[in-house]
């Protein structure tokens, strides 16, 4: 109890929550609120979150520092072994694994919700869930998956790899990094509690006026996203400060691994846009709690204002999800194609072009919203323009594998699978960017299919590719390659069988977010539902492979893939301080095929 840890965190959360609930109720009563419950639960969450963070050890040293009781705050590497993954440690490698495992758990939870939904939709009469329950499950599935897509690759692999890849010992702000992670479990708990608080009938987008009238579950959604957003902003600050200040000598901008560039680009987007979402949700909260009128047309407000502000963040958000995926794939392809990354500088330029363009395309989500008609044309053009830098990713991927010497190991298969999947996602995006077709297709299952192809194609395929590729580095063990290939094959086929029919279903009149299937689409929906179960089976195979390998797989070498980037130059797993000797970068990160080509000196860093 005296030592910070998970137990103390839980107790701290409970104590804080109780105190917060009392304060919230008291405040509401004093302020003569009609309904004190929302204030009570706001208090429970906010103080519970602080109590949890204090209990796990995130806050104490900062208070001691602020009170002038200590000069410097030391890093905390945590106990050796599995225990440190359940503790507050400042080691970016531990935090990266914490992010990966936690986000994967929630990926599975949200996936299970989707399976229930697909069962409901596949059975005749669609009646295993009532409308409200279906809508709540759908909303939670969407919200949790959005959060998973935002944090799994960037928080997981980004945290693990960025300092290693640039030759640094840790991130610029290791404690802040840990704080970013530890904010997340309470947020997750909150959104998953919403079914017990009246549910969530407004989707992951929470448009008012509906979201202003729904019960407490809507408020849980608001606080969850604000928390995830805050975590994301702190992470972005950390990544950018680390990139700017901690690169090893000789690592000029043209020698930075492409995955690092993708994290930098993602962080710029997150830094600029996430606060706008927070502000928007706060306005929604104020409308709900304090009778504000931001989105209430009867009192001068405007529901369309919400949409502008929401999408100003939420469109760039998909690039926060996708760009690290691009970076991971383009990092993996050269290694297994034994060829340099094709058009490296053009790709970096494209990432930056995506950053800029992503900020000015949001209203393509609003073509039929009632916004001024004159806005549609410009947003259509800008949205279509973003295909140009995105297309460069394909040029690079294909240019890298063409004429290579491909080793079709599991991570490579996933990287290639990304190319196949994301092209479908990207091309179908054009149908949605084009106003004449968007009017017909928006809010139908065509959109659902599109974003599953893009987000799963870019983020989830990249996540699987990354986990397989860097598994030997992170764990020091090797996974079962044969099972990996089988798992990939099942995943790729099941994914396409589950989502390809949904384009057709959308074209034939099935709306999004509905709990019933139009009769003419029953067959396609059944195919999709069956495939969803096969997809789940493939994920199960993945978990089995990884867990078994982690526990007792054969030992892996330090550099089993024979790659050049810095993380492969240290032991598997790396020592706590990453590098035991100073590192100097002398060339690009992909010197494949160059006799005597070197990225880094000295060669042996152990």
């Amino acid at each position, binding site marked *: 109890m005296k030592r910070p840890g998970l137990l103390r965190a839980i107790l701290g959360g409970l104590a804080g929550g109780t105190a917060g609930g009392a304060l919230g109720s008291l405040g509401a009563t004093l302020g003569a609120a009609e309904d004190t419950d929302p204030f009570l639960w706001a208090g429970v969450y906010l103080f519970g979150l602080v109590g949890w963070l204090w209990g796990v050890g995130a806050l104490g040293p900062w208070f001691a520092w602020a009170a*002038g009781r200590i000069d410097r705050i030391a890093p905390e590497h945590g106990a050796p072994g599995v225990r440190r993954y359940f503790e507050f440690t400042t080691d970016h490698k531990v935090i990266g694994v914490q992010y990966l495992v936690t986000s994967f758990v929630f990926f599975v939870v949200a996936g299970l919700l989707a399976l229930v939904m697909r069962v409901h939709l596949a059975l005749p009469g669609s009646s295993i869930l009532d409308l409200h329950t279906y809508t709540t499950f759908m909303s939670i599935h969407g919200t949790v998956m959005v959060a998973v897509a935002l944090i799994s690759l960037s928080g997981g692999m980004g945290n693990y790899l960025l300092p290693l890849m640039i*030759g640094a010992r840790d991130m610029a702000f290791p404690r802040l990094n840990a704080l970013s992670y530890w904010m997340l479990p309470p947020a997750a708990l909150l959104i998953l509690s919403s079914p017990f608080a009246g549910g969530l009938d407004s989707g992951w987008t929470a448009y008012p006026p509906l979201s202003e009238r729904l019960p407490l579950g809507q408020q849980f959604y608001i606080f969850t996203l604000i928390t995830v957003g805050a975590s994301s902003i702190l992470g972005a600050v950390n990544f950018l400060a680390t990139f700017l200040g901690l690169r090893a000598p000789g690592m000029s901008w043209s020698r930075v691994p492409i995955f690092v560039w993708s994290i930098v680009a993602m962080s710029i987007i997150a830094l600029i846009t996430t606060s706008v979402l927070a502000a928007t949700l706060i306005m929604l909260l104020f409308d709900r709690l304090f009778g504000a*009128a931001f989105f209430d047309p009867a*009192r*001068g407000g405007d529901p369309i204002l919400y949409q502008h502000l929401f999408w100003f963040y939420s469109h760039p958000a998909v690039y926060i999800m996708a760009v690290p995926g691009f970076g991971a794939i383009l990092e993996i392809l050269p290694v297994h194609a034994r060829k340099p990354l094709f058009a490296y500088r053009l790709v970096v330029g494209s990432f930056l072009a995506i950053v800029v363009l992503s900020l000015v395309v949001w209203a393509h989500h609003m073509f039929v919203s009632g916004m001024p008609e004159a806005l549609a044309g410009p947003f259509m053009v800008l949205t279509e323009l973003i295909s140009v830098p995105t297309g460069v990713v394909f040029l690079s991927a294909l240019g890298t594998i063409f004429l290579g010497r491909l080793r079709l190991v599991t991570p490579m298969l996933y990287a290639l699978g990304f190319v196949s999947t994301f092209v479908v996602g990207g091309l179908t995006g054009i149908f949605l960017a084009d106003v004449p077709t968007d009017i017909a297709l928006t809010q139908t299952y065509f959109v659902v299919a599109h974003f599953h192809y893009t987000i799963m194609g870019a983020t989830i395929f990249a996540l699987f590719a990354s986990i397989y590729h860097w598994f030997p580095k992170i764990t020091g063990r090797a996974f079962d390659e044969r099972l990996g290939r089988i798992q990939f094959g099942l995943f790729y086929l099941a994914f396409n069988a589950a989502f390809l029919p949904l384009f057709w279903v959308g074209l034939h009149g099935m709306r999004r977010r509905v709990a019933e299937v139009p009769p003419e689409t029953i067959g396609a929906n059944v195919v999709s539902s069956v495939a969803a179960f096969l997809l789940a089976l493939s994920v199960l195979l993945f978990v089995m492979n990884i867990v078994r390998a982690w526990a007792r797989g054969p030992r892996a070498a330090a550099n089993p893939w024979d790659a050049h980037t810095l993380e492969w130059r240290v032991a598997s797993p790396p020592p706590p301080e990453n590098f035991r000797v100073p590192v100097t970068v002398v060339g690009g990160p992909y010197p494949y095929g160059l006799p005597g080509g070197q990225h880094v000196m000295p060669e042996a860093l152990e």
Partner: protein
Amino acid sequence: MSSLDLAVPHGTAPDESDGRHVRTGMRLFIVSEAMLFAAFFAAYFYLRGESLHWPPQAAFARPELALVSANTLLLLASSLTLQRAHGGGLAWRRWLGATIALGSVFLVVQGIEYSRNAFTVADGVFGSTFYTLTSFHGAHVAIGLLVLAAMLQRARRGFLAPDSAAFAAASYYWHFVDAVWLFLFTTVYAL
């Protein structure tokens, strides 16, 4: 080379308060905070643009300009005292204390202004935008005061010098909050 030889001159960050990164980190964070206020201001301009009159209900007079102008000068003065503290010299901590004092008075005056207003947050979009913008600004002032107080405390214990990176970062934050107020004052109160 011993594996314990961790004091390598190249990019490694042993601890949080390492100066090189705190300034950059705070500047980056301010970008995010600026966007937070930008969103609130965007809502304000959008809703004001959609209203025929401002304030929409004539009964809501805008707050007294005199009091608020005085408050603005207080906040501006606090930025000046903070810069003076950075200049060093024997009494630099007193200038830091003065900054905290001025900022605190600002908040008190803001509270007085709130109590005199004829409208609440529930009074249409005027009340909503006004109180959201000013209360978020006030919250940022409060946080800034806590940060400056921590700086003063560390200075008293000898852990902070006028040119410390943490102190510089805290000042960026304070000046940012002041700048937001200037914009707020001009758009919400004056115009």
